[in-house]
């Protein structure tokens, strides 16, 4: 059984207390809002993507629990300098990590530090907290114009 300590690792607590890249990015080329209707989490992500499809900068703001805040904070740290193709690859790997069965190890090569969030899969009601920011970035990049939702 995963313990609470597996979910609330020190790095997650650190990012909750001092989220990185928190705030509005002005100007930005892409942005989107994300909602988790279950808990009322709200997120706004801002991206600056250049002509070569590279994410030059990314920031976020909003209100959420520690898992959603830390996940967004860690995500922004890891997305800077990545191409959209790389984002999509990371999106899939993150999603797989958060929803796969317990025996499947996370793709640490792709996810790096983000693997600290692997513990969420033991906490079904919290998976959406961790994935909300990723869905929101996806929605911003695809310019869906619709707020991202986790359900």
């Amino acid at each position, binding site marked *: 059984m995963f313990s609470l300590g597996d979910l609330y690792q020190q790095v997650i*607590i650190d990012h909750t*207390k001092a989220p990185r890249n928190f705030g509005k990015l002005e100007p930005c080329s892409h942005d989107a809002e994300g909602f988790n209707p279950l*808990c009322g*989490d709200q997120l706004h992500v801002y991206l600056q993507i250049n002509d070569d499809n590279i994410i030059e900068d990314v920031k976020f703001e909003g209100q*959420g*629990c*520690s*898992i959603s805040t830390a996940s967004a904070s860690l995500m922004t740290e890891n997305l800077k300098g990545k191409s959209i193709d790389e984002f999509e690859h990371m999106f899939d790997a993150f999603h797989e990590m958060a929803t796969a069965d317990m025996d499947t190890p996370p793709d640490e090569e792709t996810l790096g530090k983000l693997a600290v969030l692997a513990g969420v899969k033991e906490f079904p009601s919290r998976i959406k907290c961790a994935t909300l920011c990723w869905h929101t970035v996806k929605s911003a990049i695809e310019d869906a114009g619709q707020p991202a939702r986790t359900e």
Partner: protein
Amino acid sequence: MNIQEIRKDFPTLHQEVFGHPLVYLDNAATTQKPQCVIDTIRNYYEKDNSNIHRGVHSLSERATKDYEAARETIRAFFNAKSTKEVIFTRGTTESINLVASSWGGANIGKDDEILITHMEHHSNIVPWQMLCERTGAKLKVIPMNEAGELDLIAYAELLNERTKLVGIVHMSNALGTINPIADMIKQAHAVGAKVLIDGAQAAAHLPTDMQALDIDFYATSAHKMYGPTGVGVLIAKEALLNAMPPYQGGGDMILMVTFEKTQYNELPHKFEAGTPNIAGVIGFGAALKYIQNIGFTAIEKREKELLDYATKKAQAFDGLRQIGTAKHKACVLSFVLDGVHPHDLGTILDREGVAIRAGHHCAMPVMQFYKVPATARASFSIYNTEAEVDALFEALEKARDMFA
């Protein structure tokens, strides 16, 4: 009242969660079910299962008798004038939608106003918003103060001859506030408005007398009163129900159908189209009998003791801010804790066996009022103990330490 004896009636309570005894403090979301309710439902499916109001065979006659006996139990429990006023629905939400759609559709026009309170559950907001969108009527809101009490001076000012309906939650699920509905109903009636009382949260905690309070429409759900989910009731004055068009068409709500015209059935069947939740209704009746056996005098006394105990602990807990401190409240301790989001609290407490609710409690305007995204809510019932309240606060300490 012997709490340990009462606890024996509830099989769900006797289990462990993550190696800790379950401490169930999410009673405002749904209460646990006593063995007598579970047995009643099982007995129906094992012995009497059949459709009602049409069969000539023994099983159908027994099921019909039990279903209609439950209607009488519910009538007596809420002191409605007649069983014709007792309409079974899927729950409070459907009851309110029935009124908004049927009564509202027939009686609300573009110059009319519907008045609700700031502390309504979404189920007593959205149906009226939808009605206002359809008709052009205005939705107005009775404000509340920082303690979570309605501003009755503002209420008196908001009432006018255009007010056609006032929707009031009897007890707030997010704050615990018990609203002074007796006076509010009188004031509404003085300007000719009808009143709908959302009794979902209050009904298990304090008595409600339809006739003494002169309530026009009353909605509640069985599952918050130790009964099954998926069944509830609309109780309304017979004259209002008679004048209302049916809500849904189908079987059981008709007397005579031809392709040219349908003659509707008498009350209450006019509003009960289709095969109802028969087992649920019979279980609902058993749940109300369970409450009656304990009695509201004992329930109110005990639940006040427990809330007072929990409130004192909350006041002494560093960094805890209570949301909802009305003078007149029951059974709900809603709060936020510095530095720990309610959802993280929910997860951490769960690992200690303590079940609470974290979120907006389907009352987002209440969250907006207090400028919080969510609250943690512990809600109590007759079977909870002081030791369980202690377990809650011990778990809260662990959560606070984790994020310290």
